[in-house]
């Protein structure tokens, strides 16, 4: 290991010395080109995390007991629902941009697909429990698992599918609670 560090230092030093020996004009050119390469790499990473998926930190009380309030790292899958929009199913954990604040990302459970008839609030706290709505075309109904501490479709109604970013695939931290999230919904005939 120590030889590894020594060699690394040596090589860096050699590169640096040969860089210093170059003319000022060439130095600026090299630095500018390196900067463009770094920016390009950052853009590629951003696009990957946006369209394919990456590790993401989630916290907050609205998804207790599925997710903890103190926060955890999850893997987000942003690719599948873009390739096959029909693969969204009731019971999936989805991440979406909050319809109340464009800067905020939220994570909820998908409860209703377009055309479903949904009871707005079975607990009867935010709306009478007899009130039902039909989810319009291109929209979905989302709810937090912890109904008491969640602002979701019960409050702002069905949300547009265009707001959906991706689905949560698995939890990778804390280590003791590594899980692949399976869709828990069973249909009764």
């Amino acid at each position, binding site marked *: 290991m120590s030889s*590894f560090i020594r060699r690394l230092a040596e090589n860096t030093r050699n590169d640096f010395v040969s860089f210093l020996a170059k003319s000022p004009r060439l130095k600026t050119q090299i630095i500018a080109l390196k900067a*463009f390469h770094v920016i390009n790499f950052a853009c590629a990473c951003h696009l990957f995390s946006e369209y394919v998926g990456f590790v993401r930190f989630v916290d907050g009380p609205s998804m207790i007991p599925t997710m903890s309030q103190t926060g955890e790292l999850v893997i987000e899958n942003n690719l599948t629902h873009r390739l096959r929009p029909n693969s969204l199913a009731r019971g999936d954990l989805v991440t979406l941009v*909050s*319809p109340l604040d*464009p800067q905020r990302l939220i994570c909820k459970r998908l409860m209703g697909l377009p055309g479903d008839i949904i009871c707005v609030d079975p607990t009867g706290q935010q709306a009478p429990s007899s009130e039902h709505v039909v989810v319009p*075309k291109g929209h979905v109904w989302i709810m937090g698992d912890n109904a008491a501490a969640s602002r979701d479709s019960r409050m702002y109604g069905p949300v*547009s599918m*265009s*707001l959906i970013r991706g689905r949560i695939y698995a939890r990778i931290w804390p280590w003791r609670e590594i899980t692949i999230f399976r869709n828990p919904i069973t249909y009764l005939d």
Partner: protein
Amino acid sequence: MFTTFRHQWLALHKSWRCLLQTNPALRWPLVTLYWLPTGIVFSKYFYSLRSVKGMSMQPTLNPDISQWRDVVLLDHYSTRVKGLYRRGDVVTVWSPMEPGVLLIKRIIALGGDKVKTLPPYPDTEITVPEGHAWVEGDEPFRSDDSNKFGPVPLALLDSRLLLIVWPFARIGFVPHPSEASVKSPRGGPAWRQEKAETERHQWRTSRVTVGPNS
């Protein structure tokens, strides 16, 4: 460990050089592919060119006299990065009903405002919820807008119309409707156009009561 990494990296670099030298025709496609992420991020978060389809923004965009589809420069930076939304701006909106369809509309009202709606909407007057916008086309009878699908979340606003690039006769910045004024000599076609523009703006603003917190 490190030396092997470095050797592998140098070998990779060498074979890449070799590939480019032996097939010079590959150079431009590969270089373009390499820099593509920067290009995509630039057109997603900064500026992009697009052509406008449809009649919903007549006569501001795609007027009847035009033979071509309008090509416009869109400013994503002010909406997506700075989060700047103004009543009267022409914006592109991801359709709430059909994911993946981009619409071009004008912001009529923002969160907290009261709007008098137009026919297809069930209520005659609504208050736009916080974090939402009321968008309409300039040609209300040929437009699928908030009167059909209700207020749209601000997160669906993608960019702001900055300038018209093509056709040549109408090149230039698209002014905010409050800055437009009737300047041409009275009676000519330009005067009629400007007059109609200001009247439309007055009609639009007359239907909106601006909310308390803006």
